[in-house]
């Protein structure tokens, strides 16, 4: 399971509360690699991260993604989706967006879905 948030404070809040490994820009390369490796092998079942994982990181083991914040660009969003859609055996992937009713997040999620990745 991959949890995406918008800001680092939330990342560390979740990491502390649920005791799951976190990756932010402050995570050093060595630890980042160790966390992602651990995620592949099943040593860790959850990783929480802000935006750094969006591009250029491959995590085929992920099959559930949770997006906890509305504010991200379409491009970023599609990349997050792409993190989950990597082929890995017979896996099925689920992406959950947490959207607060009556806030700007409703509008943002609407806009994001116009990308052809959703068609």
């Amino acid at each position: 399971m991959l949890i995406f948030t918008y800001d680092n404070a939330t990342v560390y809040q979740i990491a502390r509360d649920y005791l799951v490994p976190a990756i932010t820009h402050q995570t050093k390369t060595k630890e980042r690699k160790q966390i992602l490796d651990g995620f592949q092998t099943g040593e860790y079942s959850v990783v929480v991260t802000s935006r750094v994982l969006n591009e250029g990181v491959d995590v085929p083991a992920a099959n559930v993604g949770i997006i906890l914040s509305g504010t991200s660009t379409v491009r970023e969003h599609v990349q997050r989706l792409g993190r989950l859609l990597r082929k890995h055996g017979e896996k099925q992937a689920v992406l959950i967006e947490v959207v607060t009713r009556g806030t700007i997040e409703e509008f943002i999620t609407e806009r994001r879905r116009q990308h052809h990745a959703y068609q």
Partner: protein
Amino acid sequence: MLTGKMVRVRYARDRIVPYYLDVRDESLLLAAEQLLELYRGMEGRTRGELEEVIEETFGDDASLVHQGLAKLLEDRCEFEVVSGQPPEAVRALVFRTATLQRLHPVGEQASTGFDRQAVLEQVAGMLNLGVEEVERSLFADLKSEQKLIRFKDTTAERLLERYNVALAQAVLLRATRVHVSITGEPPARYRQLLRQLKFRRLLCEAERTGPDSYTLHLDGPLSLFSSTNKYGLQLALFLPAVLLCKDFELRAELRWGAQRKPKLFLLTHRDRLVTDAPDYGMFTPPELALFVESFRRRQADWEIAEETEVYPLGNGYWVPDFRLLHKASGEVVLLEVLGFWRKASAVKHLQLLQRHATLPYLLAVSDDLHIEEQLDELPPGLHRFRHMPLADEIARLAAQAIGRA
């Protein structure tokens, strides 16, 4: 150093004019004193707490000036990760234990779900620590968790002076070329300036424009293909050495703003910027210290010493880094290791040496500090190393240079 968004300047046609602070302004002195007082009382607290207190004190009133002053004070602080246990190891253990518990819940956990306290207790048991200590160590290495261990105090007036220098330094980060003319200094001062240029490893041509005047032509960071930030910082750190001169004129060609518009920045002794930078006595760039150490250890036939002499060379000068003394014969080989370099200037420098040098010499360059996109073949006489010169190779070349190979 001030960050880009803290820089306050106005435009006067093609010129960039920083908003220097009046160091005698009562309200500014008061704000500076307030900030200083704040930092003085924060030893032992975390960076996060410090930021909170500053925000509380200045709130939405925190102007760019306040932010800038706070940043300069932060630069005077030493922070440290305070944790009995390495945080990385503690959290790896906590996260692994938590995963195991989620996969194989024990007893009640199967129905109640994830039990945070149980995980922490288990890890505390394994590490022989208290639960609280485990929690504290978890992310003790985060920037916001680092503890302030030392604050180098200063006065309100000094802080405002430092701000003005920092403003000029920040502007220089956007330079493509910098020309500095200096007049009327004693030889010792020139020697120090030239050594300081070497120490900062800057790209510079020095031109002697009179019996007691020099003009330095420096490359600005924005003229480099790579290492722009690293080089910019060194150039900024060179400025205080210029400010120590009584009569100088600095003209910087800038590329300003997102559009990289050509602008000019002028700074002279009449701007009355005051630096509290000490006159440095160190001459070996930190990157070269390892080479010196290895040379001393491995080459018994040679003695290596810093060379402090400045040699005239054609119309310019030459500051080699080291003097290698061949113990048996008493012969000397001078060694220069170029700092940031590009091929054309290195070759030009080599030719000058070939024409004018009066002692045997070696000229070395490192791939790490090469700042062009591409590098094709170099002429013989430029000795190329990946990072630093290798002691054995330098000794062999030096022996060759005095005909004792």
